[in-house]
């Protein structure tokens, strides 16, 4: 599903005299479909940065990222923005704990959007969104409201629902369960296992050892 070879990333801060900050040193690994892999390491070692590199938010300094996109291997490090958008639509999903709140757009729309972009029928997309919101304990009375006024935990769960909605073959999870209570954390873990069972590859950063052991078969240590 994903092959990373000799991937490195360093920031060059031109505003500070061109100082170079290494973030990822020559990293190689691969992930296959249906596999759940944890990225581990002390904080500041670039766990989130790695996910951003894979998602295309960061530009790799050197190395290669190959992904199986629509049955073809695609090199992501030199891909055009338009193709990257297509990869994000169909292949790579990214879930963080932070919801980028879009004012005035209803929760249901936010969650169903990724499916609708992929060409799924609106009614089917809405149904999937409802199921996910239900699974994540978002009360039905909130579905038609913008999550702008929701509590932090609720916003986070809306974002998770959105991330899982489209059944992306590769899911990048950045501390998806941080600051959730036990009940909801378990729900999210269920979603992860479900996605895995459906064949998605999972690459995750957890802030909690137990969770990591609960779903992940192996680690990539940074």
């Amino acid at each position: 599903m994903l092959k990373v070879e000799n991937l490195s990333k360093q920031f060059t801060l031109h505003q500070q005299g061109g100082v170079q900050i290494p973030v990822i040193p020559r990293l190689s690994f691969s992930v296959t479909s249906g596999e759940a892999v944890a990225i581990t390491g002390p904080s500041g070692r670039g766990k989130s940065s790695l996910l951003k590199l894979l998602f295309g938010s960061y530009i790799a300094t050197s190395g290669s990222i190959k992904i199986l996109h629509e049955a073809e291997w695609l090199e992501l490090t030199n891909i055009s923005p338009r193709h990257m958008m297509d990869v994000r639509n169909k292949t790579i999903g990214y879930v963080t704990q932070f919801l980028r709140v879009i004012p005035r757009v209803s929760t249901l729309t936010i969650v169903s959007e990724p499916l609708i972009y992929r060409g799924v029928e609106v009614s089917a997309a809405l149904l999937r969104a409802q199921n996910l919101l239900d699974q994540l304990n978002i009360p039905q009375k909130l579905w038609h409201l913008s999550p702008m006024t929701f509590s932090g935990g609720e916003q986070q769960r809306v974002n998770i629902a959105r991330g899982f909605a489209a059944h992306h073959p590769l899911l990048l999870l950045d501390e998806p369960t941080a600051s959730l209570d036990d009940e909801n954390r378990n729900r999210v873990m269920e979603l992860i296992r479900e996605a895995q069972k459906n064949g998605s590859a999972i690459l995750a950063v957890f802030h909690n050892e137990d969770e990591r052991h609960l779903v992940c078969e192996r680690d990539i240590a940074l």
Partner: protein
Amino acid sequence: MNGLLTVDNITKNYGSRVGCHPASFELWPGEVLAIVGESGSGKTTLLKCISGQMDPTSGSVRYTKRDGEQILFQNLSEAERRFLMRTDWGFVHQDARDGLRMGVSAGANVGERLMAVGDRHYGHIRKSAADWLRQVEIDVERIDDSPWSFSGGMRQRLQIARNLVTAPRIIFMDEPTGGLDVSVQARLLDLMRGLVRNLGLAAVIVTHDLAVARLLSTRMMVMQAGSVIETGLTDQILEDPQAPYTQLLVSSVLQV
């Protein structure tokens, strides 16, 4: 397969002064491209040169029509250009007074493009105008009012409705939220975002406001002193800017 709009080495000189160094890009259906940079960086010049508002000094703009045929904008007759610009293309000016006919009512402003393409049924024109006012969240009661009686945000929304009534495929916007206060801006941005998504429009938006670019665009082009210095996905430009100037630009705004 061709993009909706293919811009190839567009340049613009104002006498001996360079307005815009060679710029090239491709725009695809559903894409929103933001051109960012500070005042005087040439972004409006570039926008005007690719949208038929101004003749470029050199370079070409190709447009793929609904039937898939790609045409060279510079080869079109003036009649064909003007027709294209009031059917398949739309242009939202920074100052709504440049984009509206201030002397006639809001409804006539929206209906004008319909009449220009041959609609001769008052009832139909009136209904379309009302529908579009509703879509841009202007009270339909105001349909016969003059744009002079509208607030800045309303005028901007009216300008958008006026452009969208012929179901264009590309919309060019020059600082669409400039000069509006923040709460009005937010409302306009939400509206544009929704319209762009629901109608599958492609858009090119010139703005100096990175927050506007982040909310609306999928892709970004950064300009400095007439040159395009960086292009990429919006989140990539904002989170991992490469060029020194882009880093300065991103770091000098408040968190967006």
